[in-house]
């Protein structure tokens, strides 16, 4: 019997498109889906004699992200040219950073299914310009759209610290949430704002000897689902391949495979890593960037409590569920608004329900953030307090919230206008209860008899009271009266 034990090893190369208004080295707008070659100028077209000028915002966004990734931030970085010929690269070199990236040696914490977190090392983060797109839709020739050329891209390279498809997915989700929180990228995978390229191989122990399979890089992943599945697929494929052929990693044995999303398989694209010589050398048209302590402090001032930390705190401090805390920390504006409402006196769980069940729904419909609904944190706080005090039912609170977003009026007035103030007056309700009990002797009998039917009958009576009060009775008070009467 052969003993085989194995572990999958994954490192990620990630490209994040920064949400600057203009491109990395010229003033052209960064815009998705515009008419081909309409967002271009002599500089991003690489015409003779033009010169690049660094987009300061892109550099600051990148440094901020590197800070969030706990990277060491060198005070001196420079630009390099990376040379290769391709029609979507007008200069036939890309301005990038080679030996002095703007951030290195960091880490990111990712949540595991167990509820614990895992630390994944970050090797480096550097800034570069994106290439254009080659379009092969016109028959006998190809076309080039250079709108994307020169868009600022932050490249992040992780250590090979992930050991499952789920962990890879967790990192991707966490990074997306982080860059959105920092406001440096829209991070929409469908639009190519975030591109993940996993490098995958296996460490296999067979009969006490460790083997490593060849590293495979996967391309064409445009969803978290595809990312996770591609890793899982590779894990199986590489194991089967090893057991069948016994092939292990050798010099230059790295291959590139493309992910086929329909068939859910990876397909060989490039056998053997071609000996690429990019002939990097310092970009003479740009001056190196010197990050002064003051500038660094200005950038650091935009750093905030990061989403995972905040999520953990919400669970701990406000006793929210992992899911709810996750929803609230998906966007920084949501989390900030949530905290403002809590600060205004809202009970955290109530506020969470109001925001996740109603506020975010309206915001999604309007395509804005929950803080942009025209409803102040104080007003939402008061609505939460009204629910807490039993003045408005949990179900009615959604109606009130929607009306607040619609009219901008205060919750008290709207609850009044919409007749949604709960009746909690015990004397008034007792009369209604009395009437209902008199009209439904069978149900009363079922309750008092106890047994299987008791609970259902009690619910029926409560429902009758609610119906008679047109839903305005406070169910908690009604239940108490019922319990007393039927004791």
């Amino acid at each position: 019997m052969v003993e085989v034990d194995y572990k999958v090893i994954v490192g990620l190369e990630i490209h994040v498109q920064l949400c600057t208004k203009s491109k990395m080295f010229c003033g052209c707008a960064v815009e998705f889906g515009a008419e081909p070659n309409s967002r271009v100028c002599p500089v991003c077209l690489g015409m003779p004699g033009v010169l690049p000028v660094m987009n300061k915002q892109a550099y600051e966004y990148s440094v901020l992200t590197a800070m969030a990734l706990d990277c060491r931030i060198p005070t001196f970085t420079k630009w390099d040219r990376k040379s290769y010929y391709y029609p979507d690269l007008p200069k036939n070199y890309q301005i990038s950073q080679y030996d002095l990236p703007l951030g290195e040696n960091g880490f990111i914490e990712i949540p595991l299914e167990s509820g614990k977190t895992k630390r994944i090392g970050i090797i480096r983060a550097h800034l570069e310009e994106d290439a254009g797109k080659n379009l092969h839709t016109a028959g006998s020739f190809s076309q080039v759209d250079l709108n994307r050329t020169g868009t600022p891209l932050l490249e992040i390279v992780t250590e090979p610290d992930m050991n499952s498809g789920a962990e890879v997915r967790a990192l991707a989700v966490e990074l997306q949430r982080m860059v959105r929180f920092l406001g440096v990228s829209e991070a929409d995978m469908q639009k190519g704002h975030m591109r993940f390229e996993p490098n995958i191989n296996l460490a296999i122990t067979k009969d006490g000897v460790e083997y490593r399979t060849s590293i495979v890089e996967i391309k064409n992943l445009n969803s978290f689902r595809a990312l996770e599945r591609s890793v899982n697929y590779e894990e199986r494929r590489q194991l089967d391949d090893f057991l069948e052929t016994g092939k292990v990693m050798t010099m230059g044995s790295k291959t590139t495979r493309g992910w086929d999303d329909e068939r859910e398989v990876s397909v060989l694209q490039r056998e053997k890593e071609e000996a690429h010589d990019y002939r990097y050398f310092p970009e003479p048209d740009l001056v190196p960037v010197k990050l002064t302590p003051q500038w660094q402090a200005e950038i650091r001032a935009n750093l905030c409590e990061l989403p995972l930390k905040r999520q953990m705190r919400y669970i701990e401090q406000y006793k929210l569920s992992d899911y709810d805390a996750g929803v609230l920390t998906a966007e920084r504006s949501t989390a900030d608004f949530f905290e403002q409402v809590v600060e205004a006196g809202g009970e955290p769980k109530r506020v969470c329900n109001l925001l996740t069940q109603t506020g975010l729904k309206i915001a999604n419909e309007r395509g804005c953030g929950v803080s942009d609904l025209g409803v102040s944190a104080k007003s939402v706080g008061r609505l939460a307090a009204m629910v807490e005090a039993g003045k408005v039912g949990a179900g009615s609170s959604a109606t009130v919230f929607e009306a607040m977003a619609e009219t901008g009026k205060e919750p008290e007035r709207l609850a009044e206008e919409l007749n949604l103030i709960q009746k909690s007056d015990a004397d008034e309700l007792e009369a209604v209860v009395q009437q209902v009990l008199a009209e439904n002797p069978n149900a009363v009998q079922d309750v008092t008899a106890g047994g299987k039917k008791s609970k259902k009958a009690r619910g029926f009576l409560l429902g009758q009271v609610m119906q008679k009060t047109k839903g305005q009775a406070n169910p908690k008070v009604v239940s108490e009266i019922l319990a007393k009467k039927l004791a």
Partner: protein
Amino acid sequence: MEQLGAKQLRDRIAAGQASSVEATMAVFDRIRRFEPTIGAFISTCEERALQAAADVDSRIAAGESAGRLAGVPVAVKDNMCTTFGATTCASKILENFHAPYNATVVDRLLGADAVIVGKTNMDEFAMGSSTENSGLKQTVNPWDTARVPGGSSGGAAAAVAGGLCFAALGSDTGGSIRQPASFCGVVGLKPTYGRVSRFGLVAYGSSLDQIGPITRTVTDTALMMNVIAGHDPADSTSADDAAAAACDYLEKLDEPVEKLKIAIVPEYTAGADESVRRALSEAIEVYRKLGAEITQIDMPHLDYATAAYYVIATAEASSNLARYDGVHYGHRTQEPKDYVEVYSKSRAEAFGQEVKRRIMLGTYALSSGYYDAYYLKALRVRNLIRGGFAGAFEKCDCIMMPVAPTTAFKIGEKTDDPLQMYLSDIYTIGANLAGVPGISIPCGFDTDKLPIGLQILAPVFAEEKLLRIARMYERETDWHNRRPEMRKSIRG
């Protein structure tokens, strides 16, 4: 009128004593007579120039203020982009390239009311020392039409020497302004790296390239600098600190530099022709008589300047010229087999020999496994040379040496021997590597009646002083007033 300097002409036009249209017509008259022989221009734009001249004249007649180059006919080397006409870099690959933008220097010329008459010939992509590497035409030296005008700004220098314009802009990566100025008996200044915007200058060696004036007199060079120098936000490498702050180069031009300390480098320049060395020592004598103190210094690192230059410049060029691939603009090969052939054949067909040689040299120097031995080592040499100049300038105001080891050589004499050709730049390359300014001014003639240039080098951003030092000599001599005897259509 053609005997006037650019500054004199401008002042007369501004004062309403001369007309720009008249001056421009006179220039085009000479172009018609002598250009077929000289071949200084790749393109001229007479109609546009006359219109601009008429516009200047009418604005001055209407009492509007005149620009610093009001109505002066000037020429621009054909590696500076203009929205009018083509910008070819004397290369077949850009033969039909029309830029949708002006180089910053061109905008500045136009903003100063200059009248641009044409774009001048050059070695293809500024790679060469004789303008023989032009892919489009040959330029000859107005002093002897069997000889080269120098290069790579040979067309600009020949045009100024031949009176085909009053001033011109050249570019200097390893001596390409100073050496042709010397060969053609005119003044040429390579400013400090970062002094003049490179935006719109088609790059050869980006860390070395610098635009500068070619004129008949030091005064005209100062005038041109007043127009083109200064920070440009479109060029990240253009200096904007206090040291580089713009100044009026004409203001104190005629004030001699007191207690002038001149350094010479006899060991380094011992290899120059005898006539060149004699002209240099005679020029030094002039300064000595003016009260200058002369010291001898040693700059051992300069022995490695040419080697370092040909690694750094070609490395940058290999990357800068990668964009000429037939995909987006410029020459494209007919019926390529696949997209790789679009690149390889377009480039093979349209680049000249010397450009190909330098692209290959530079590609090699940057290749993995060779980078440290060539590119990195060359950068270290460059740092030593920079340090050597900085150290030397602690002890002197300027360094004087020949511009080139020889005077203008015969057409075809060195075309088969690139290494010999490269040595034409031996004395000029140091300034580019160190980024310091250098000027070439006429300082005599050899036995063949060919002009000789005196090179003066100064610390970074010391152009104001450099021009004053050059002007001291010019006031004492009349070499700059000599004109070649121009004959019409010698070559028939």
